């Protein structure tokens, strides 16, 4: 199992998000990447938290193209049409994260990513909330919806899928494992994100290990996070 981190990147700056609601500034992208490189994490998932309209895609992409990191990078947030894919050329990124494409009945965007960057490069991202019943966040509509709105064909085209617990985002624990059985996605391709330490430390609560966990970007604030997570495994 890999141990990585998510890094929220928006309008040229990085943030830490709490509960899908509060953003705490972390500074410039390169600064954050330099610090994260020191931890020798297994991967860094750079996510642009785009909800509804996206005015800064081009600007953020240009900044990301100049980013330097020796850690494997995944990038997503704002890849919504075929023109957006063309702008990704030359990025120092191995994998691409799609979210709104999972709600689109047309799989052309994922198929294009597949043809251009290979099957191994596509990661789905599903933000979810499981307070009373399971709801998934649709970035196109900027609201939580029933999981039935997900396009199963699009999900099948993803090499891995991030399940991001919005309620526990930025927290040490709280990832709701029930989402796995409720969504019914192939267990061999799951990545957990958002309050994941409980999942890792309490091995017996799940019968399998996800392919990866993303420990939010609090690693920048709690310097012992990575060691703690490895210790828990």
């Amino acid at each position, binding site marked *: 199992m*890999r141990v990585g981190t998510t890094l929220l990147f928006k309008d040229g700056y990085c943030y830490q998000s709490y509960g899908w609601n509060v953003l705490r500034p972390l500074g410039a992208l390169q600064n954050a990447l330099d610090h994260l*490189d020191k931890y*020798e994490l*297994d991967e860094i998932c750079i996510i642009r938290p785009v909800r509804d309209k996206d005015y800064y895609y081009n600007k953020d992409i240009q900044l990301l*193209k100049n980013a*330097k*990191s*020796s*850690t*494997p*990078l995944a990038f997503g947030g704002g890849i919504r049409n075929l023109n957006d894919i063309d702008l990704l*050329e*030359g*990025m*120092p*990124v*191995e*994998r691409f994260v799609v979210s709104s494409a999972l709600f689109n009945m047309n799989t052309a965007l994922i198929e294009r990513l*597949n*043809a*251009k*960057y*290979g*099957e*191994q*490069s596509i990661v789905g991202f599903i933000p979810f909330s499981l307070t009373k019943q399971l709801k998934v966040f649709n970035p196109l509509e900027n609201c939580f919806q029933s999981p039935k709105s997900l396009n199963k064909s699009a999900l099948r085209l993803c*090499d*891995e899928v991030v399940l991001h617990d919005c309620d526990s985002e930025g927290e040490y624990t709280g990832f709701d494992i029930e989402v796995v059985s409720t969504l019914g996605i*192939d267990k*061999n*391709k799951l990545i957990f994100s958002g309050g994941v330490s409980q999942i890792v430390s309490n091995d017996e609560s799940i019968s399998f290990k996800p*392919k*990866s966990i993303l420990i939010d970007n609090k690693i920048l604030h709690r310097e012992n996070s990575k060691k703690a997570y490895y210790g828990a495994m």
Partner: protein
Amino acid sequence: MVGIIDIGLGNIKSITNWLDRCVVPWKLICSPKDPQEYEMIILPGVGSVLEFMTKLEQLRFVDYLQTKSQLGQRILGICLGAHVLFDYSEEDGGVHGLGLIHGTVRQIPLKSSNTGWLPCTFDKRPMNELWKSQKQNISRKQRVHGRVFFNHNYGIQLKESVDIDLKIQLEELSEFSALVHKNNLIACQFHPEKSQLMGELLLKMIL
């Protein structure tokens, strides 16, 4: 000087960052008419083989690479760049490669990609003089052990004997190669440019 084949595909920026970290001068090769001599040419990875080979053919890099290889030019292929050094890849319905090393690229027997870190030990001693007697001599290390980053759905299966054939250190993929070295060529299934310290040591050892 290291040359990087630039056909508008692949993670070139990651490669240039890697070379910068190791303080190695580099230049992009945007045309097969590039007259400069390079100590090593890198064929970068990330992509799908059909689009990659089509671009190499359109931009006339196929003849360039085959001729350079025959003349003893040192070439390092990374991930997809490594796949195209072989005869044939099963990806995208089947695509013929450059045929510089005899072998086939086949789909790996896993339910999803092999994405993650695996151990790797690289020993320079079986390499020929072409690699051992370089002027730059960045590192005098002979052997290095560490972890390297993989991200692939297809893997290399050799059909000839080579100087070095490191297998992937995973039970299900033990028939697939992680690194192949034959004469002036190195095919690297993993991403040394994203393998942190191990990747930097590897580059310094082979340059």
